[in-house]
């Protein structure tokens, strides 16, 4: 896919903040000494007075964000996913989640594709953690176009949103005039009748690649992009289960607690069919280049295609 433009979702996040900062004068951005990495510095360059560096103190940052939100500010609080969802979980839960305050958590460097920094910084638990907070919206955009749309939707939505962005430049797949983003609404990217690959984040382009591989084996795979993990699109999942009879989930997250779990919950309740989860198999990451790490842990199109065949073999 060398001819496709590649942009990291964190870059799009920073640019979206700067763009919408001009529209919404009550938009305030907090960061915890990572603004050059989270890309909130793009916003800072345009609106320095509304960019607040909280220093390396993520817990305080989340509760400060809550306090700001009580006064009518739309607050984005940014750090790496590990520290936003991990270290500051309890502040997110009690200061932001419980009072359902208008805070958007811009969590960058999610998943294994952090790369060289290794396991301490490769957060593959954040979706699972955030998903258990009542009322928390979780969005994991697949590319720069979706990241921008997610930021806009989060601003317009009144309540807490967890936005998950990546460090690695990823192919822009949604650059088409028909693209429409709506919180909680999955997107069918390609039709198919034999199996459905439900992917999120940077696994979406891999799912599209897997579709091509499967086609060579005569398998017609449907591709669904789930950008909103919570509230999850029950309709599109139920339809996929009923019409294709087998599902593979693909995510850059632990297979426990993330997209795979969320899809299984819907499938067993609405329309039981085999589901095979592809993702990080309950293990910690390792240092390496982002692409080497993703390959090492099997987050590849080839593996999706294999899992799709397994799911089909499990059909009754």
């Amino acid at each position, binding site marked *: 896919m060398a001819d496709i433009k590649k942009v990291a979702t964190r870059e799009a996040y920073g640019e979206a903040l700067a763009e919408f900062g001009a529209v919404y004068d009550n938009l*305030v951005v907090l960061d915890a000494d990572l603004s050059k990495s989270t890309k909130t510095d793009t916003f800072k360059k345009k609106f320095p*007075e*509304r960019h*607040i560096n*909280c*220093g390396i*103190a993520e*817990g*305080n940052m*989340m*509760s*400060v*964000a*809550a*306090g*700001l*939100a*009580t*006064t*009518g*500010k739309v607050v984005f609080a940014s750090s790496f996913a590990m520290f936003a969802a991990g270290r500051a979980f*309890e*502040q997110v839960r*009690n*200061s932001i989640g*419980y*009072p*359902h305050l208008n805070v958007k958590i811009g969590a960058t460097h999610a998943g294994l594709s952090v790369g060289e920094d290794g396991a301490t910084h490769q957060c593959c638990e954040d979706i699972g953690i955030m998903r258990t907070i009542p009322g928390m919206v979780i969005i994991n955009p697949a590319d720069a176009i979706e990241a921008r749309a997610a930021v806009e939707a989060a601003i317009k939505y009144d309540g807490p949103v967890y936005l998950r962005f990546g460090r690695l430049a990823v192919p822009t797949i949604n650059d088409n005039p028909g693209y429409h983003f709506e919180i909680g609404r999955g997107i069918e990217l390609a039709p198919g009748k034999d199996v459905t690959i439900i992917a999120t984040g940077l696994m979406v382009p891999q799912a599209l690649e897997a579709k091509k591989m499967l086609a060579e084996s005569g398998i017609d795979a449907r591709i669904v992009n789930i950008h909103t993990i919570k509230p999850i699109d029950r309709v599109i999942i139920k339809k996929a289960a009923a019409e294709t009879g087998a599902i593979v989930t693909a995510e850059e997250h632990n297979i426990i607690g993330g997209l795979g779990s969320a899809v299984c919950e819907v499938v067993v309740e609405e329309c039981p069919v085999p589901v095979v989860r592809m993702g990080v198999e309950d293990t910690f990451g390792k240092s390496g280049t982002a692409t080497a790490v993703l390959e090492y842990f099997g987050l590849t199109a080839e593996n999706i295609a294999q899992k799709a065949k397994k799911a089909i073999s499990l059909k009754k």
Partner: protein
Amino acid sequence: MDAASKKQLSIIAVNIRKHALEAVHSAKSGHPGGSLSISDVMAYLYFKEMRIDAKNPKLEDRDRFVLSKGHCAPALYSALALKGYFPIEEIKNFRKIGHMLQGHPDMKGVPGVDMSTGSLGQGISAAAGMALSAKLSGKDYRIYTILGDGELEEGQVWEASMFAAQYKLDNLCAYVDNNGLQIDGNIADVMSPYPIVDKFKAFGWNVIEINGHNLDEIEMAYSQAKTIKGKPSVIVAHSIKGKGVSFMENRAEWHGSAPNDEQYAQAVKELDAELAKLEVQ
């Protein structure tokens, strides 16, 4: 403070104590000790200091109050009810299923509660966020927050302290209820936060040390805090846990346990005697 004001506030403080105990007794659960130790400052804040309107709890430019030591909700609820935010009858439904007064303050359910708190250390950060918001918007409202002395053991308090000093939040006034006791005993034995005054000074705060049961000193402290520009202020108040009820005073076991019927009757008797004394002054 003039004699009439002092008498009025003293009576309110005793009534806050009475209703706080009523709440905890009705629920057979809750935190009487720390509620009684902040009753005087709660009376002062809600009936003298803060620019608020009970008829319009969400007034945009109101002063804000954050009970960072959220477990002392009985004192907050009593002050709010006495101020007219909701009927005083709600007090007896404290901590009961289906009623609004949760064990710890819930801003979504209770008129007058500006921030949901209960997990220690988070309230002061939220208060700092509110203070920052006022600065960003060029508003002149002030933010008040009360912390426990045991709460100072939470690292987040010091993250918030750095933050408030860094952003020169002189519209933030914190109050540390230094009653010296936490659930497990004496704060100096469990995990000493001392020297409290020196710590806040080192963090760049204006520090005022007072007797937390002296209304003149409370008023003086809050008035002085307003004159300090460029840094946040903290009032470190020496207080008595369980203040006003003889058998609860200075006893850690009254941190989080409810009086039985007999103890409650005795406490009410003592507080009524105090009220009678104040009325004839």
